[in-house]
């Protein structure tokens, strides 16, 4: 028997006595006998922490591709960035970790101010004035953006570039079943959205990726002009790290920015908890999904922070709320504020620059290999897709034997969404380079790939 319960048998006895009861069962006596669980749960008895730790050691030993054991060149929305000890130490402070949603601002200024700083940073990186306090992840943030567009335009048609991450598109499809949105996907040609190929008239939203899921940098002015023409919201799903050097969503004219914030201090974590980034223009503020923190003063005029514009939210607005989100990803938002504080203005630039340099160095080396060709001839940031002329799944397995996680199989990634790639799919590998990758690691990658492909 192991648990974290304080009550001694004496405590239980005296408490029951205070209630005029004889047994703990009396507390459940009013539950219809017909449905009571007769013989308890069929779950093994409790184990001590060290015993459970041993069980988990068994699990972790079967995770052979950790970024600590293998060099990680996989990306696709989840990146192996540097997370320094200082950020881990601050983000794991138990006041941040074990607090609830800041319902009582008088004793929650710590989390509230950290969110306010996070909001400021997301506003700057997105180039849009109205951020929120986080959403679950990028995919669900996109869904909220579509809902916002539906609300703003009263229309149902969501025109989404196939350059948007296949998982995000997949999730958008799932939730459209409830909202009744019509999802129109615009195919890619040579890795770039072919906006002309579909009818965008009556669109509620025009959605483009920057860079897109193949790593390609598209000129977003076409998309923007279509949005203007149709009176649709222009939604840009962007890599926030790119904002260290590339144009922001706002600079491209976006009405709404969504993105994945994992890159800012959150480990790969097998996909979660991650951080859904969201920001929009002033005129959409009343439709903002989720929480937002605002600055105000206390009764003695000291600066204070508080969650605001609550009237939009589910607990007050109920079925008319702009969104159903309640619990979000605050701890990851606080972590992002800390990580960005650590990186600073020029650290973020440096990270973005190194990602680009490393990616272009590796791209040149790989495309020089016989049988390897790029999926797109267009400019890219830190990620690119290659035809290998060999099953990408198989290549990944073989590279893993050489302690390299070579990238992602686009066929696997696009399970449930159009890859929108010319030619074969199974041989397409999506390769990513972050600032953590050294020249030696990249050179080892190339050597290993030579062996695997030969």
């Amino acid at each position, binding site marked *: 028997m192991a648990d974290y319960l304080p009550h001694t048998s004496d405590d239980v006895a005296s408490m029951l006595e205070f209630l005029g009861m004889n047994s703990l069962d009396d507390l*459940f006596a009013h539950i219809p006998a017909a*449905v009571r669980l007769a013989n308890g749960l069929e779950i093994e008895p409790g184990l001590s922490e060290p015993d459970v730790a041993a069980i988990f050691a068994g699990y972790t030993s079967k995770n052979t591709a950790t970024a600590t054991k293998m060099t990680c060149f996989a990306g696709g929305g989840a990146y192996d960035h540097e997370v320094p000890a200082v950020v881990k130490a601050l983000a794991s402070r138990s*006041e941040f970790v074990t607090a609830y949603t800041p*319902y009582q601002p008088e004793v929650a200024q710590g989390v509230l101010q950290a969110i306010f700083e996070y909001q400021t940073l997301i506003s700057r990186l997105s180039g849009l004035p109205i951020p929120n306090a986080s959403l679950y992840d990028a995919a669900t943030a996109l869904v909220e953006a579509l809902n916002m567009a539906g609300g703003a335009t009263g229309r149902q048609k969501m025109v989404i570039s196939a350059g948007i991450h296949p998982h995000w598109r997949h999730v958008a499809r799932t939730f459209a079943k409830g909202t009744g949105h019509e999802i129109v996907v615009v195919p890619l040609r040579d890795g770039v959205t072919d906006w002309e190929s579909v009818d965008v008239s009556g669109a509620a939203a025009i959605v483009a990726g920057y860079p897109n899921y193949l790593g390609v940098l598209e000129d977003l002015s076409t998309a923007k002009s279509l949005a203007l023409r149709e009176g649709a919201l222009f939604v840009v799903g962007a890599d926030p790290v790119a904002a260290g050097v590339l144009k922001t969503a706002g600079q491209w004219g976006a009405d709404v920015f969504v993105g994945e914030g994992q890159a800012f201090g959150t480990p790969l974590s*097998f996909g979660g908890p991650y951080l859904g980034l969201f920001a929009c223009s002033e005129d959409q503020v009343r439709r903002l999904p989720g929480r937002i923190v605002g600055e105000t003063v206390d009764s003695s005029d000291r600066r204070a922070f508080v969650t605001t514009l609550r009237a939009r939210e589910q607990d007050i607005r109920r079925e008319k709320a702009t969104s159903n989100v309640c619990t979000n990803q605050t701890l990851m938002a606080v972590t992002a504020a800390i990580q960005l504080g650590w990186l600073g203005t020029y650290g973020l630039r440096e990270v973005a620059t190194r990602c680009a340099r490393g990616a272009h160095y590796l791209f040149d080396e790989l495309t020089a290999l016989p049988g390897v060709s790029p999926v797109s001839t267009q400019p890219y940031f830190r990620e690119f897709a290659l035809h290998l002329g060999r099953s990408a799944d198989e290549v990944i397995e073989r590279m893993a034997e050489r302690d390299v996680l070579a990238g992602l199989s686009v066929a696997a990634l696009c399970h449930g969404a159009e890859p929108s790639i010319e030619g074969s799919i199974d041989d397409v590998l999506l390769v990513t380079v972050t600032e953590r990758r050294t020249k030696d690691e990249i050179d080892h990658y190339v050597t290993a790939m030579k062996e695997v492909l030969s």
Partner: protein
Amino acid sequence: MSSQPGGRAASVPLMGHESEPTLFEMSVSGRSSYQLRTTGIPETALKELIPTDHLNPDVVPVAEVSERDLVGHFTRLSHRQFSVDLGMYPLGSCTMKYNPKFCDAIAADPGLNAVHPGTPASLSQGWLEILVTLEEKLCQVTGMGAATLQPAAGAAGELTGLLLMRAYHEANGDDRRRVIIPDSAHGTNPASVTLGGYEVTTVPSNDRGLVDLTALRAALGPDVAGIMLTNPNTVGLFEEEIVEIAKAVHDVGGLLYYDGANLNAILGAVRPGDMGFDIVHMNLHKTFATPHGGGGPGAGPVAVASRLVDFLPGPKATRVADGSYDWVTPERSIGRVHGWHGNALVLARALAYIDVHGGDGLTRVAQHAVLNANWLRHRLREILPAAYDRVCMHECTLSATALKTKYGVRALDVAKALLDEGFHSPTVYFPLIVDEALMFEPTETESVQTLEALAQAIERIAERASIDPEALHHAPQHTPVSRVDEARAARHLIATADAK
């Protein structure tokens, strides 16, 4: 010097009650903290790699602070923040129990957190085994057939559940329009119903704080897709007519959705599946003690009865023929509801928590949670009578109506005064059906000594109310900031340091 000092602690309650400068106010051009690995990669100029029309002509300002100031700033902010680790957090409906540090350590293991979510199943068998094992245990706890672990929180679970409901009905070729919800329901329920494409029909509670069965029967019909219930409900009371409710809903072909936010009350005592529920979401960040992180992350797995299993989101970690694990998408899956596999590290924490407790421990958890709530309800009956004074489950909804009529002291005043007494406030003004509601959920990890101290604090507050009620309108006084001007925040939105 324009910018603010990074090394002054006057904002730390330990020393003073001044406000803490923002990261941006501390920023000084040219200062930095970051240190990156030496890569050896040629330092080509960016414009030679990326066309200039993509490059931002301006530098996006982040902040420029030293590591020392970064540490000072966020450590001071942490001292301006209450948390479970500092004291009791009796927020009704939130299950703020102690979060074992052991589970944090599990989640901090690189063997789990350094795994890329796109890693092929063959190279991440450990993770898939964790997901499958957790799914099995959650199904055992709820009495269900299978579960998805993708939803990132309770509300996400609700919407997923409603989409499952919709898919099920559509598969049976009948299209239904309404979902029934009691007036005591949590706000996420109606909001999710709307996003699920259904209309909300609200049924009133009866004078016992439970669903009014007659009203429910009246509301039911062939166009009802299902009902969403929390049991125990948000008042903390068990829906004793649940069997009849289930039958009535099933009779019209509807499904029963179980909002698992209050699951902590019934672990090992009664299971949603056995009560007749078809779809169940769980809040692992409540019942299974994963930390709330100041508002998230959570995890809201959804378990379903066998007839709904084929519709679950995919891909799903599954034990396959050869005993290994792989990703499998259910036949008629509604599709992905999360960018990857859900909040994986939260899921791992919850499994560790379940393993430590085991079936016996989980049962004790519910017993002691219910014991604590009832002890507190009974202990406070004179000052804050329960809205429905009988045996409650894991939480008790008390009312400050008496204090309000006698002294003009409202639930909010009591809540704020408690902060000065060293306790976090309970949930106030929820559920909406109770006047001047103060909803206390002590959880099982608080001792009877702590409950007694809370009761005495409330007695002192009641005492003060009778002597100087005005003073209570100005509580709290000991906190870093006093009551904040919420109206002003909403009237003139300042959501970023750049807003003017």
